[in-house]
């Protein structure tokens, strides 16, 4: 069966490269968290960090009198967690969208999934009451994320139906649908702005420039379960997504239950993107840059790419957010502006390189 000299395993170099990258990413993640906690208008020395982190446990009463402990617990820790979770969800969502749409240029922002979420969230802010009556009050913080999920879900499902009419979803059709959806959503947000009151207007303007500055423990508490569900839905789809890249029919030939995979991916992407948009506004290009960079090192196989995107996306947004609030301090650049500044040119370069391919 196998010829002599064939006993070497396949993909040895690839496996080694994968291992190095995962070690590097997992090593950098705690360092990035430490950097995010220490850096800022009031720098906290890494040596003070442990004491400040332990303050609520040792003497909860001291927290008000200790500015570093207060800043850490009230601002930087929830912000770091929110940035990491949001980045992870956006990158994972992007990576899965690229698999489901069989297109390396599919990004939740460019396709309009994020805009769909933002319109629904904005509608909820303007038209729904801020708090629900009676026992339902507990659900109030979930209103906007819930609406955002519904918006993201609608757009993802719509795009999927638009793209599946052809054997191979064409990139032009997808991106043009994205432009149309984005334009429509922009108009809808515009209409909502005209009827919003002052308080609502301030909240709405937050969407146009994505930022994790508004992070609180409530928002972390909302995003963490969303993150957990999205991970449970999306991470096991790695092999199915690999097969799906050959085409729906071919995936079915090798035993993939295509409708089930597509359903789970759609819900997972919509949850991740919707949840993120509801809590951070529109942060573009993370879902495009991270999987693209990782693919050049890990290859296109989703078994490494999906967990890699979670780590890489979290890391990228955490570092970008830390940079956005420290580089030109005391001015704070919204992190969405930063990711778009890096992502826009990269997207153009990507388009150019694809055009040169046969």
């Amino acid at each position: 069966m196998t010829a002599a000299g064939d006993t070497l395993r396949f993909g040895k170099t690839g496996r080694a490269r994968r291992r190095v990258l995962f070690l590097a990413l997992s090593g950098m993640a705690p360092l990035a968290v430490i950097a995010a906690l220490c850096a800022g208008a009031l720098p906290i020395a890494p040596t003070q960090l442990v004491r400040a982190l332990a303050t609520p446990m040792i003497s909860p009463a001291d927290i008000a009198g200790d500015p570093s402990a207060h800043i850490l617990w009230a601002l930087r820790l929830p912000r770091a967690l929110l940035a990491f979770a949001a980045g992870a969800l956006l990158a994972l969502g992007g990576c899965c969208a690229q698999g489901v749409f069989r297109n390396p240029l599919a990004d939740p922002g460019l396709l309009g999934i994020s805009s769909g979420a933002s319109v629904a969230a904005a509608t909820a802010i303007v038209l729904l009451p801020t708090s629900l009556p009676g026992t339902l009050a507990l659900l109030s913080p979930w209103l906007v994320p819930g609406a955002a999920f519904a918006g993201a879900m609608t757009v993802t499902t719509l795009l999927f139906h638009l793209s599946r009419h052809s054997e191979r979803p064409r990139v032009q059709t997808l991106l043009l649908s994205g432009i149309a959806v984005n334009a429509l959503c922009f108009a809808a947000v515009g209409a909502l702005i005209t009827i919003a009151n002052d308080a609502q207007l301030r909240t709405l303007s937050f969407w146009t420039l994505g930022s994790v500055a508004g992070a609180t423990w409530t928002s972390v508490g909302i995003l963490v379960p969303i993150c957990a569900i999205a991970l449970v839905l999306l991470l096991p789809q790695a092999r199915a997504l690999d097969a799906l890249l050959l085409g729906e029919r071919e995936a079915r030939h090798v035993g993939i239950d295509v409708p089930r995979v597509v359903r789970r991916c759609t819900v997972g992407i919509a949850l991740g993107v919707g949840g993120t948009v509801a809590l951070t506004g529109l942060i573009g290009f993370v879902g495009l840059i991270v999987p693209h960079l990782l693919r050049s090192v890990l290859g296109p196989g989703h078994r490494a790419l999906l967990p890699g995107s979670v780590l890489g996306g979290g890391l990228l947004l955490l570092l970008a957010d830390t940079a956005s609030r420290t580089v030109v301090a005391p001015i704070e650049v919204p992190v969405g502006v930063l990711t778009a500044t890096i992502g826009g040119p990269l997207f153009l370069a990507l388009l150019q390189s694809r055009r040169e391919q046969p």
Partner: protein
Amino acid sequence: MIDARGVSVDRGLRRVLHELSVQVRDGEVLAVVGPNGAGKSTLLAALAGDLPIRSGQVLVHEHRLDSLSASAIARLRAVLPQTPTLAFDYLVHEVVALGRLPFDEASVEREAQVRAALHAVDMHRAAERPYLTLSGGERQRVHLARALAQAAGADGLAPLAVLFDEPLGNLDPAQQVGVLQVVRRVADRGAAVLIVLHDLTWAARLADRVLVLRDGHPLACAPPREALEAVVLEAAFDVPFDCDWAHGGGSVLLPRTGFTPQRA
């Protein structure tokens, strides 16, 4: 064994297969020929479980396909579709390994199967090459290897039925011979093989039986010598044929000379 009983398939409002019954026995190659639009690929898709059928039933190894999950069907039959596309740069062995998805096995076993499949199509030296750097013919052979890796099945399973949809496109004559040898070997190992072919000469030389289709109806289903008679072919293609069954020990089937383009 593939057993189609009275299968009708509609595409939109049009009926493209009319109560077709056909059997492919284990160890046999059945070639399906006919003009464009005769329903050849539709038949293959119906037998693969890709299309909802209007009436009748399809059984593979005596299991009704419509009662099985996608993964159970994938352990009964392998398919090589016409033009698979892949826009992402997988390595060749990764593409072939997708054929092993239906089977629960250790990675060492999987690699052995992938290696054997790549050897069978003479692509083993390209195992670590990126798929997108291959030529059209090489890509075609990689997909053939993927179907072979799936067709190899697993211990305790009957040999998988294999369906090939026009596997000779993009290939030069030497590679066509190579692919047909692979197809023959699959059948010789005990699999039921159905192959859609455009080239009648290859169908005559390869197949144990030939099904001639026109407008979703069978005109003949018999050993090549009977099914590919000149009268049947003319009825199928509306062109008279020259059939030489003893051309240097093999058969040659071509439209009659007066109907092929002549130099002025």
